[in-house]
């Protein structure tokens, strides 16, 4: 779960990290009210994706009236597929310098990596590429957490020796997001040193492991409903599916992430473009197939669907029957190509054929067929 900035800052605050005063506003009026309480503010779009600044999602407002106008512009705008549900009005900071602090999972190291740099701000990826040494790194032992001397070394390595003590304390607090919240990534960029010498989180990004949601039900309850992302993804999540929206017009269903991804690859190779990634997992039960089809058919852009299923435990004939039931229940009219392999694949294909569904023997053949059918606009 990717938290919005204001949510991430609430979590940082609960960990004892200083954040600027700020108020959430769901309407332009609320934004004006916030500015009259806070003084000059930044009005910031709340979306779980980077690059909102460049997309026009952050505006400075010196007066309540300016805040109202900014909020009017920002609330409801679309940033990389997310409709902005609300803005965060935050008091402006007197910035002395901007640092970078973050951690994430380094999958090659099978460990968490902490990163600290004196060169904070927007261009940290460029810094990483051009002068990697200016980003100090630490792999804390996952049971011990970062030790004081390791954090001191990190601060000295980052050229922030004069901030060793406050930085050690702050990083230990941020690190608590791992044991306490199963955070996968936390990033404070910029980490602001104010003219008064305080260290304050200028922005905050926090991603919580969905696999650990059972340990943090409170978070899901507080924040789960706020984000208004892609409507199909929202619907798929409700139905318990692994689903990602894409740009194309061919709906894809597969069982297993690898099979599903390779199906996407084949469709593109055949000249088509997938409308989604949808992994229905091992069993390929009729009910799950129906749920997946239902979500895919919600998308008006979809011109046809390719189902690629390997029948391992579930037999091919059962999978075929399930697909037919799902199609009939949903009164699906679009082209449907099914590639079935594994146990009883022949019987399965025969059932499909009898019910007017194109079976594919190989995945590649099936991909070519669905691309052909959608291009032809067959109904």
């Amino acid at each position, binding site marked *: 779960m*990717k938290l919005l900035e204001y949510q991430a800052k609430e979590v940082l605050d609960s960990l004892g990290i200083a954040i600027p005063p700020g108020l959430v506003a769901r309407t332009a009026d609320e934004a004006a009210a916030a500015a009259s309480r806070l003084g000059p503010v930044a009005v910031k779009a709340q979306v*779980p*994706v*980077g690059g909102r600044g460049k997309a026009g999602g952050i505006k400075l407002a010196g007066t309540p009236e300016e805040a109202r106008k900014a909020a009017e512009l920002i609330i409801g705008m679309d940033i990389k*597929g997310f409709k902005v549900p609300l803005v965060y009005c935050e008091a402006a900071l007197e910035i002395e310098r901007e640092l970078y602090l*973050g951690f*994430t*999972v380094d*999958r*090659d190291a*099978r*460990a*968490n*990596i902490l*990163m600290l740099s004196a060169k904070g701000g927007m261009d*940290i*990826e460029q810094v*990483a*590429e051009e002068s990697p040494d200016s*980003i100090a790194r630490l792999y804390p*032992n*996952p*049971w011990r957490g970062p030790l004081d001397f390791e954090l001191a070394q990190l601060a000295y390595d980052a050229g922030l020796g004069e901030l060793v003590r406050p930085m050690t304390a702050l990083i230990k607090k941020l690190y608590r997001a*791992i*044991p306490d919240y*199963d955070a*996968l*990534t*936390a*990033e404070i960029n910029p980490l602001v040193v104010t003219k008064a010498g305080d260290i304050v989180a200028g922005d905050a*990004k926090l*991603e919580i492991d969905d*696999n650990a949601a*059972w340990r943090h039900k409170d978070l899901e309850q507080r924040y789960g409903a706020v984000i208004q992302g892609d409507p199909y993804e929202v619907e798929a999540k409700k139905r318990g599916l692994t689903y*990602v929206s*894409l740009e194309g017009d061919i709906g894809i269903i*597969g*069982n*297993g*992430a*690898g*099979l599903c*991804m*390779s199906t*996407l*690859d084949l*469709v*593109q*190779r055949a000249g088509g473009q*997938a409308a989604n*990634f949808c992994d229905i997992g*091992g069993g390929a039960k009729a009910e799950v197939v129906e749920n997946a089809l239902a979500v895919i058919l919600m998308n008006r852009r979809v011109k046809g669907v390719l189902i690629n299923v*390997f029948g*391992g*435990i579930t037999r091919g004939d059962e999978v075929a029957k399930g697909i037919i039931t799902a199609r009939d229940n949903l009164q699906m009219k679009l082209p449907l190509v099914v590639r079935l*392999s*594994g*146990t009883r694949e022949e019987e399965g294909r025969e059932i499909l054929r009898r019910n007017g569904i194109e079976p594919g023997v190989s*995945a*590649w053949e099936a991909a070519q067929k669905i691309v052909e059918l959608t291009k032809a606009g067959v109904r």
Partner: protein
Amino acid sequence: MSILVDSTTSVVVQGITGREGSFHTEQMQALGTKVVAGTSPGKGGTTHLGVPVFNTVADAVEATGATASGIFVPAPFAADAIMEAASAGMTLIVCISEGIPIQDMIRVKDFLHGYPLARLIGANCPGLITPGQAKIGIIPQRITTPGSIGLISRSGTLTYEVGTALSAAGMGQSTIVGIGGDPVLGLTFRDVLELFEKDEATTQVVIIGEIGGSDEEHAAEFIARGSRLKAVAFISGRTAPEGKRMGHAGAIVSGNRGTAKSKEEAFRKAGVPVAETTDDIVGLLR
């Protein structure tokens, strides 16, 4: 010959009385796998599927001398189950459970440093099978035939596809290892390749990779340093979109590595042909 598991391996099934544990224990037994015990807290002293059930893995090991474990417990208990198996002296631990929190697995990986003999496969993997001999996990026996090809894969269903295709083409397998698709996992491609390298019965290997991480690149480097094995690789996810990024931390850490392109290039540079589709694998092995 084979790697990691054969008909002599004595196996404990952790979570043997659960639905998944029961079903797959039966499948493992049907192939002839020597399942010597199961564990299920509170059910110690009972028998299930003809096998004695113990409360803890340590008890099971003490009573049976088992050296390998298959884990079929729900995700919230899986990390603990892996550590329990290692601390009980298991040398092969196969964790099928999916959905384990990543931070749990990071802690498990560190824990395992204290048990250098314990090899972990997975989690979130189909396990491994030595055709005609034994299996730990859920790979269907019927997609396999005994032979000399080693198969290593991050994906479950693609493993089944490729296994089926190989078997249909008369190309048997020495051992098939599904290492799992999670970001933080046990044995890597490279680890398994090293084992195949030492297994005389294996002459060819198929590597089925995926985008993300650098394990495929490391495997390619291993082969490039000289291997007696004829290898073929396949990478899925060429057209998968990058996840919508929020911060920069991920990009700073991984840079340009982890893409399908980077992986395919690494294999080609190592002299390993890369299949365009899984259907092409059989042809490239010939």
